[in-house]
């Protein structure tokens, strides 16, 4: 419990620093386009439950769904590519060719094919995260020293045993790091996709407030978006401490 308390204190500390910088900039600039944090927080408290919460939940659900599918596809692929040379040989060129394509450039195509609804947004997040997961997990498996397998081979361990007892745990830290790196990109791309064809999501909320020149609401949205990021990163940290405590 005490440990969680310390963590929360660190988060609080981070929030405090950001707020102080924000306050300083607001005072220096002294224009309506940068309102002070106090005004924004006051506005946020007033409209959170009535207006923002539903948008936040929509964004969160899209990210979680995209990450979920990226994990379902990326981890098994990465593990197989890392362990079986033939898989790596066959799939690496495909990954290398498609990985650098800016996924956001595919948005019009995806929207045309899958429509403007949830599917195209989730697919976008999936596409951004899955490559990082595949490459990180594959390299994690490749980095396992050969000697680690020997005692298991001499026990006659099957492929399933090797996956469960060696490959999965050994590649877990790299997988979580890749998730962290990809998460930030995913959130910013999500923002972009939510400005099209939807009336829910933080992207829609922020752009809508901007169009209405309601800077207080716009900043309230930005604050919530950054909290969503904080929650996601915090969750990954928490999972890492739980499952990678070795």
């Amino acid at each position, binding site marked *: 419990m005490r440990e969680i308390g310390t963590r929360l204190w660190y988060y609080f500390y981070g929030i405090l620093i950001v707020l102080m910088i924000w306050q300083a900039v607001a005072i220096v600039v002294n224009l309506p386009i940068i309102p002070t944090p106090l005004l924004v927080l006051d506005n946020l408290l007033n409209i959170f439950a009535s207006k923002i919460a539903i948008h936040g939940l929509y964004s969160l659900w899209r990210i979680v769904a995209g990450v979920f599918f990226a994990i379902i596809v990326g981890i098994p692929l990465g593990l197989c590519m890392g362990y079986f040379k033939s898989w790596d040989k066959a799939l690496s060129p495909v990954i290398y060719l498609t990985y650098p394509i800016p996924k956001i450039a595919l948005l019009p195509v995806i929207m045309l094919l899958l429509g403007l609804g949830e599917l195209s947004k989730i697919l976008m997040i999936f596409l951004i995260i899955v490559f990082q997961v595949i490459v990180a997990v594959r390299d994690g498996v490749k980095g396992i020293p050969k000697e680690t397998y*020997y*005692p298991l081979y001499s026990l006659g361990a099957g492929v399933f045993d090797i996956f469960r*007892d060696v490959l999965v745990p050994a590649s*877990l830290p790299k997988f979580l790091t890749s998730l962290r790196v990809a998460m930030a990109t995913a959130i910013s791309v999500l923002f972009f996709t939510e400005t099209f064809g939807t009336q829910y999501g933080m992207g829609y909320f922020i752009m809508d407030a901007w169009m209405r020149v309601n800077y207080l609401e716009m900043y309230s949205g930005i604050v919530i978006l950054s909290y969503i990021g904080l929650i996601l990163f915090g969750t990954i940290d928490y999972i890492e401490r739980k499952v990678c405590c*070795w």
Partner: protein
Amino acid sequence: MIRIKNLTVNYRSVGECYAALQDINLELGEGETCAIIGPSGCGKSTLLKVLAGIIKDFWGSVEINGQPVIPSKQRIGFIPQNYGLLPWKNVYDNIRLGAKIKNKNDGEDKEALNNIIEQLGLGGLENRYPREISGGQQQRVALARAFLLKPDLLLMDEPFSALDAMTREEIQEVFLDVWRKQAVSTVLVTHHVEEAVYLGRKIVILSLSPGTVSTIIENPLFGGEDIRNHPDFFKLCLELRKRIKEDWSK
């Protein structure tokens, strides 16, 4: 019963083929220990890997109890130089690992597990991770895992070489203690003459490239009480040293 006949292993490196082991012949009775001693690069580890079923590409025949080596059919315990513990499993799960993979269908023998933990003095460390315990303790965990398996054959690759002198002697003692209660056919590779004399009923000297068996010595002192302080122990060590020196300078 372990029987190695005309074993030759070739290595391929940068397109060139060279022999790591040539024409090895060796027999090891049920419940015997055999120490293999040889210079670096003579193929000691290669020999162990063949016995462990890790290297499958070789000439000649290697049999455990009359059957060729197939890891999934026999019970082989293999302790590599770095002990082979999985860093992400705690001591308890590391010890269970061998038996868990081997006895898939039969339930776990909790009593045997607790006995072996007790015997190797690992009580209280069950929840620690390998990086949180000392080298000597890690070696004990590796031994516990191997003995819990009740193997047909136990293989150890320079098992005690990374430990300081005092810990090494202590663990050698522990090994013999457990071995006396559960006589397992054991092949261990070492480059310490004293270790070979202390732990090997058979002592096999390998010579350098390609690795061949140059001498097999039946060790009359093996298993005696407190042999480390026996004058014959020193004599045998000296003799062995001399023989090794002659052998390796050829």
